[in-house]
């Protein structure tokens, strides 16, 4: 059975009142969703909090899910990201405004630095970025938002979004080069 069909079946059972089906749904995507939370939040503790809060929202809004418009994974990931962004907006100071027009959109890292790079290491390095850099980097590079969407969502200008992304990449490059990720152990 295709993955999406299983999801739809579990959603229908959840809507019929089955908590077990919802737990099954949660287990299927919890790792992927926790990874999103970890990317956006600075600590694992906060990330798990966001995961919990987001899943409560998912449960409440499950009846709004329309399988014809996309997969459960896409739909639920958006809820996870929005929950994290909402949290960041509330408690973080505003993003620094730096106007830098020129930027390089790829991260050029030496092959040596990349040799042993894996998901965990990359996550660790991203987590060391400041809130502003990390959020824009996550949204643009990993979650596929445009700068316009980022600007609208974070209530910043497009140029600020671009400059944040550039700085984020510069920072990451520096950290990769210095093997700083090796010393980051908050997710271990």
């Amino acid at each position, binding site marked *: 059975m295709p993955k999406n069909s299983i999801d739809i079946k579990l959603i229908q059972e959840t809507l019929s009142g089955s908590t077990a089906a919802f737990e099954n749904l949660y287990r299927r995507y919890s790792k992927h969703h926790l990874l999103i939370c970890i990317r956006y939040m600075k600590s694992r*503790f906060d990330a798990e909090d966001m*995961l919990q809060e987001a899943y*409560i929202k998912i449960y409440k809004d499950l009846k709004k899910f329309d399988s014809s418009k996309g997969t459960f994974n896409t739909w639920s990931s958006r809820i996870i990201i929005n929950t994290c962004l909402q949290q960041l907006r509330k408690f973080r100071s505003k993003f620094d405004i730096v106007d830098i027009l020129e930027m390089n959109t790829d*991260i050029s890292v030496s092959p040596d630095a990349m040799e042993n790079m894996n998901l965990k290491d990359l996550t660790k390095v991203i987590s060391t970025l400041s809130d502003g850099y990390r959020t824009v980097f996550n949204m643009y590079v990993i979650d596929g938002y445009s700068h316009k969407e980022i600007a609208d969502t974070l209530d910043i200008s497009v140029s600020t979004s671009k400059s944040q992304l550039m700085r984020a990449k510069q920072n990451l490059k520096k950290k990769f080069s210095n093997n700083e990720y090796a010393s980051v152990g908050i997710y271990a």
Partner: protein
Amino acid sequence: MLDNKNIKDLFNNASLEDQDWLEPSDSVFSGIEEAIYKNEEEKKPLLFWLVGVGLLLCCLCISTWALNKNKPPSESLKIENQKSHPNIELNTSNEITSNAKSDVSDHKEVGNDPNNLNDRSVVESQNNDLKNASSPPIISNNKLNTQSNQLKISTPTTNKLSTTLDITSTEKISSLKKSKNTVIEKKSATTPNNNSNKSNGLKSTLPTRLSNTPKELIYKRNTIINNQKIDPIVESTFESIASLKVGVGTSIWNFHLNDNYTSALNPADFSHSNGIGVNLNIAYEKTIAPSIAIISTVTLEKIKYQSGHNSAVTYDTNSELIDQENEFDLTMASPMGFLESQVVVQRSIDSTDPQSDLILDLHNEHENYNVDFNIAMLRQIISTKSFSTSLHLGVGINHLFGINNKLSEVNINNANYSTTLKSITGNQNNINPTRPYYNIGLNAQKRITSNIGVGLNALYMRDFTSVYSDQDFSTMISRYMVHASLKYAF
């Protein structure tokens, strides 16, 4: 090279099955489960309250209806009862005869008392549009027994009635006879099949009877009954009383943050106190039925409460303005939404780190005024001569104004840093200042003099709408109010 696409693929398409470090702790799902069940459980008390309030209203309606049914007639109803209730018809005729105080020494066939006819005419003309007037009284049946000094009166439309009357004045009897003859003449002038003429004839007698108000009639009736040592019909004890109340008291506000709001604030160790306040109120109360009154109250209230939470900031020496200071624009949470503030943090020269993560412990003080208009029904549940207790059930509107916030204290978790300036730069948005609510409570009242009393009121109020609402976040308010009042009845 690790380009954007590679990073995106790594995060979105990589298999996570072997990534045990991404396994959420068990507490996450147990928290989700708890929140889901809690939500469903929360719906039950609401349903319980709705059903409870509905039942209570039904009980009050039924009891009000029952009271109205049993209560002594109001002025319009008294007339109707005179028609349908034999005693009242008897009393009315007695009144007239008693007023005459006639002494009858001869056996005379007096016939029907014209005033009695008039009484009936009054009753019937006012209540039945003279329909019953088509049945003329059988005058010959009404006889005055002079030997026993008894006046026997009967009418065809009522059960046969009899009573003993002291007749002291022959003059009055004569006048009654004259009146009777007048009425008989008038009645003779009408044809039995001509209702309109009959009505006109009866109408001509109305002014005489209407000159007495129903209250006067009842008074006279009871006077007669007292003279006859018959238990009087108890006149209504209900009297519509208006009164003015002035009260002062204290209030407690409970803020009910919804799950999303609570969850969002939990990581920041958000806490808040209940609102405590004082209130001044003035009320107008009017009894509308025995044991039931309507009360409308205007209350002015002042409420204070505190809230606080942590906020994480990064002190960057490169961003210092002057005197080793960094300025932070912070968004702070309160039970009624988010505030904007500005905090200036100063670094001591002992701290040389280019970047320091600081936790600011923020404490806010909030104050607001509100005016409240409430209309409620008071249902007396216990009543003695000088003490009564009533159930209070009502609805109202509360309006917030004069919202003030103060950032009272900022503590920093690093001794090398201190705050030099702290201020609120923006108050809460998305506040709904005007909210309808329902309330339920108890009112105890002690009568001091005939028109002065003191009272104590305890009320619970719950808003129908949230005081703060923004996307998934919302806060509802419930309030407890206790106030003492001085009542003046007029």
